[in-house]
């Protein structure tokens, strides 16, 4: 599998696509998010697995997003996600609120090829009446009484997208212990992976590397994007950049400030690998 350019990868995501992404603590494809902004993507339906962070906020701010399904949106230490909050206030983005294990469960149902999967808890939360696609049914295995239990429908995003440490010659990618990226890859129809580098060999032939690998079977395309998770951390390869996020949080408090940030950090600065 030959890597494609970051801009070509972004061009392959059509307007309106549902895209599942991990949050800031789990290999977000931030460089790809910036490329999607440069390509002027519109109407994206984002899924935070299980929550949303920096990449989601900049995509919302840039007007790329019609819907966010997530359990929370936040910049972590830097506070609330400013463009997400503004969009909720304005009603300009449809928010499908969930709770973390429900997102995992909906993706696991898709991973397993079943139409739904049950989850304990959640009953009594106002999430349930706001999710007409969720059902509460009596547990068919309950010995006595009703024992209501939540059933969640399978969620099959059009795309999964994340940033891996590396790809090998065969298109296998390595994410280490961030196995939610594997769930994203399995559950999504197509999977786009940005990587720090491409290395020779086959991760699946190495007993030490295989456990942290995702087979090329699930990978639609790979693009090299050095520091592609920045300002999020990349396993033990680079740390998070809280100063960058804090500056973003400050500037993005207003639409104008966000615009200025976007000009400087995304529109006028394509990733190295894309040039």
């Amino acid at each position: 599998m030959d890597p494609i350019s970051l801009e070509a990868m972004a061009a392959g995501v059509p307007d309106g696509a549902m895209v599942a992404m991990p949050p800031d603590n789990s290999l977000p494809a931030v460089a790809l998010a910036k490329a999607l902004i440069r390509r002027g993507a519109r109407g994206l339906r984002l899924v935070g697995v299980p929550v949303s962070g920096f990449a989601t906020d900049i995509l919302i701010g840039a007007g790329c997003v019609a819907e966010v399904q997530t359990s929370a949106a936040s910049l972590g230490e830097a506070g609330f996600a400013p463009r997400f909050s503004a969009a909720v206030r304005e009603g300009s983005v449809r928010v499908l609120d969930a709770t973390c294990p429900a997102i995992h469960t909906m993706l696991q149902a898709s991973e397993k090829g079943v139409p739904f999967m049950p989850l304990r808890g959640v009953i009594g939360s106002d999430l349930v009446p706001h999710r007409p696609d969720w059902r509460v049914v009596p547990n068919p295995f309950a010995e006595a009484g009703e024992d209501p239990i939540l059933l969640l429908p399978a969620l099959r995003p059009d795309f999964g997208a994340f940033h891996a440490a590396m790809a090998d010659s065969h298109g296998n990618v390595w994410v280490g212990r961030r196995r939610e990226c594997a769930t994203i890859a399995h559950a999504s129809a197509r999977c786009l992976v940005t990587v720090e580098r491409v290395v020779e060999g086959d991760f699946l032939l190495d007993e030490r590397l295989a456990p942290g690998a995702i087979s090329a079977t699930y990978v639609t395309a790979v693009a090299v994007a050095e520091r592609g998770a920045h300002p999020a951390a990349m396993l033990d390869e680079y740390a998070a950049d809280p100063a960058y996020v804090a500056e973003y949080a400050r500037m993005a408090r207003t639409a104008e400030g966000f615009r200025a940030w976007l000009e400087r950090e995304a529109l006028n600065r394509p990733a190295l690998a894309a040039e």
Partner: protein
Amino acid sequence: MSPAKPEERLAAAVARLILDPSAPPARHVAVGAASPIPAAACYLVQKLGHPLRLSLLARPAGNPFTEGTRELFDLAGQGRLDLFFLGGGEIDGQANLNLVGTGEWPGRAVRFPGSFGSAFMYMMVPRTILFREEHSPRVLVPRVAHVSAPGTSPPGVFRRGAAQALVTGRCVFRFDPGRARFSLESLHPGETVDGVRAATGFEFDAGGGVPETPEPTDEELALLRGPVCDEMLPTYPEFCARVFGRKAAA
């Protein structure tokens, strides 16, 4: 030993709640990303010599999970997690939590980040300690605008536990899930029952002679400022600098 800072007092108060012998045993505790005081409380319990497995979700290295983010929730589903901490943009007198927002759903007036795992964890973990430093009528409301996670559940709904207590910057409340009501357990130094009533949007019980929240002992303070701070430095550098005056080694 210099006097306890408010954060140290809160950590010691939470540690005492963790060790409460009348509560279900706490062998394994998980602490979320934005919770330095609960994390300090858990480390304090460990350093006091009590065995406690601590899964610190924000720890950059040594995160205990190898199956991805879902493993925390699976762990709770399996009943292997004994205690969790939750907060909320709003908390009401029935211990309902609102992490979604106020105004029309999904938070058209003020949007909070979102429910995270609260709707699941609150019901699947035998014990939850609610923690919110801000103690104001804005946070502690008669009735939350939206329920992210319910404080109690009707009979027949599967639920392993409920809130044990609510720790704020002013006091410690106990929660009685049978009555779905808080009672004042102790007041932090300088607080009064009337003052707490004025700052609390919900009704609560307060018996005669509510005691003061105990000060951390010298041993506890020494542990907090020494080995507890050592453990917390990589994960909570700003907290350690602010509270313990310590910076991570370069």
